[in-house]
């Protein structure tokens, strides 16, 4: 009896000990050939830790591992699986003590509106200042001059299809219509499980604004989606397995995903619909009250160095934002539809804005979505 208690207590104690030991001791860094502001580095190393809140299983693990090794700073990561989850976290807890977070444009807009973001110290992130292109910045209405967030990449929506099963001569390929309208692939279609995306792209297909809050237009979208639902196999934001196992033949996805499907399965093709779509960026932002602000800046600067950013882009397959990365990616990557965007296509795209995110627009979208999932 007594012995059992001792063992239990010991176990508990041991457990806590090991939990506390998991942090790796700092390794002195050899410094890379890109500019690192001395003051930032010193403060960051004093802080010694970095709390990151980002997408689960997305960015290549080496990016974090190399950063830890290089600067001797321990990274603690928590993950979210959707913008909604991300926003909800901050809405419920505006003081969530993260240093760097990686929302998408929508998440950043909402966080900024909630007033939880802090302004970046540009002097500490020379890489970002140097390599970010001007043209995107006009579109990113919510953050002029990248004052609050540094976009690490851009994203567009499209779809992937499997030529083994899908008739690749169908003239509608290249348009959202192929996905949204009647086609012979009922039960083999997956849609993203994202309200704004599914509704917004349907609006684009019908020739309206991605951010429309017009009741008539949205009602049309509703009818389109309700009709489409009978053909949809699943609303799944991560249909990778379904696509690669060839259970799903036509799959709504981020452009970068189709590139990776193709790497693994030859018969997968990608499509960037001609009607245009949402143009978004994935910015790194620093919440107010971040406990390790210098480490956060150090990390952003690190991610925006050409080598690391190229490593990132090739790891996620998204559209590079970074001037140098655009040159450094291999030709095969550049050739995939949607990875490098020309100015003309960009004009057809829209950045999400408050018309969709608030008031009538949000209400209508929620209603459509809830009705769709009923």
């Amino acid at each position: 009896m007594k012995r059992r208690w001792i063992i239990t207590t010991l176990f508990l104690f041991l457990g806590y000990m090991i939990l506390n030991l998991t942090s790796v001791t700092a390794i002195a860094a050899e410094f890379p050939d890109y500019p690192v502001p001395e003051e930032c580095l010193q403060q960051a190393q004093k802080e010694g830790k970095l709390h990151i809140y980002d997408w689960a299983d997305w960015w290549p693990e080496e990016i974090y591992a190399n950063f830890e090794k290089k600067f001797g700073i321990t990274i603690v990561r928590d993950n979210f699986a959707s913008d909604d989850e991300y926003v909800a976290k901050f809405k419920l807890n505006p003081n969530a003590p993260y240093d760097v977070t990686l929302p998408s444009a929508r998440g950043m807009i909402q966080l900024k509106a909630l007033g939880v973001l802090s302004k970046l110290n540009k002097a500490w992130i020379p890489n970002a200042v140097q390599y970010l292109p001007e043209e995107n910045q006009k579109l990113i209405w919510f953050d002029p001059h990248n004052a609050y967030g540094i976009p690490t990449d851009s994203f567009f929506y499209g779809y992937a299809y499997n030529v083994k099963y899908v008739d690749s001569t169908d003239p509608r390929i290249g348009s959202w219509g192929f996905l949204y309208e009647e086609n012979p692939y009922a039960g083999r279609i997956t849609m993203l499980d994202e309200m704004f995306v599914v509704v917004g792209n349907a609006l684009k297909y019908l020739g309206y604004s991605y951010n429309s809050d017009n009741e008539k237009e949205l009602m049309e979208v509703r009818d389109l989606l309700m009709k489409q639902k009978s053909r949809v196999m699943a609303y799944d934001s991560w249909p990778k397995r379904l696509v690669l196992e060839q259970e799903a033949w036509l799959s709504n996805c981020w452009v970068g995903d189709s590139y990776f499907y193709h790497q693994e399965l030859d018969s997968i093709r990608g499509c960037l619909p001609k009607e245009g779509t949402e143009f978004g960026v994935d910015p790194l932002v620093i919440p107010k009250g971040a406990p390790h602000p210098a480490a956060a800046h150090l990390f952003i600067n690190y991610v925006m160095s050409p080598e690391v950013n190229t490593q990132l882009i090739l790891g996620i397959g998204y559209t590079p934002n970074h001037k140098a990365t655009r040159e450094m990616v291999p030709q095969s990557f550049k050739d995939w539809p949607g990875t490098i965007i020309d100015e003309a296509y960009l004009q057809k795209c829209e950045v999400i804005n408050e018309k969709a995110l608030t008031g009538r627009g949000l209400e209508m979208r929620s209603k459509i979505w809830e009705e769709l999932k009923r």
Partner: protein
Amino acid sequence: MKLRILFLRLISLVTYIFLWAPVIVIIVFSFSANKYGIKWDGFTWKWYAALLENDMVRETCLRSLVIALITVVVSTFLGTITAYGLYKLKFKGKQLLRTSILLPIVMPEVVTGAALLLFFIKLSPLQLGYTTIIIAHIVFSTPLAVFVILGRMQRIDWSWEEASMDLGATRLSTFRRVIGPLLMPGIAGAAALIFPWSFDDFVITYFVSGIGNTTLPIYVFSQLRHGSTPVINVIGTLFTVITLIGLLATKMAEKRSRTARL
């Protein structure tokens, strides 16, 4: 008569197959060379090797283990004294208390999780983290312990307690020497119920976890999103095997102690 037993056997067999099929799939595919762990592509040990190298699995696993252990200890203790009080004492508002103890069990986990989250961040000085996870787990599992142990108490002859006091034992010593050992099956049963629950809980933990305390189920969930990786199958296999071994060991120990006594 014969036909009826046959029918019962058939349904039982089907149910057992239904319950075990996914587990067997997990175990078999943990040895499959298939990259997504969903097909048989030849035998391999490589996912087991991969698990050894995966820090995240080790960390989250340990974390879940510690949380589950603390939860078990605290909630069985709390459950025991509560069950004792509920069983032995009469007072006003007892029915109300019993009903309110039932609440966490009957609330959907989503509601409990959301309520606790709102409460922790808006009203309590606690930072989201181990403490909040453990509190949430205790809140949920104590009622389970209370009712399991209460069930056991109904089977105890309470003159044992009086006999012990009568023979000069204090309340504490009575509990340690008499009531405690007799309640043990109930307490162990409660622990056996709570431990796997706490270790496996996703919903409540998902709501109340803070920074850097991703537990195993949450990690597994985020990994599985992108298609199941075989490493997850390995984790599942290991748990099943460890549970089985643990159970067998207890059984053997029980048997031996029983024979030793005779």
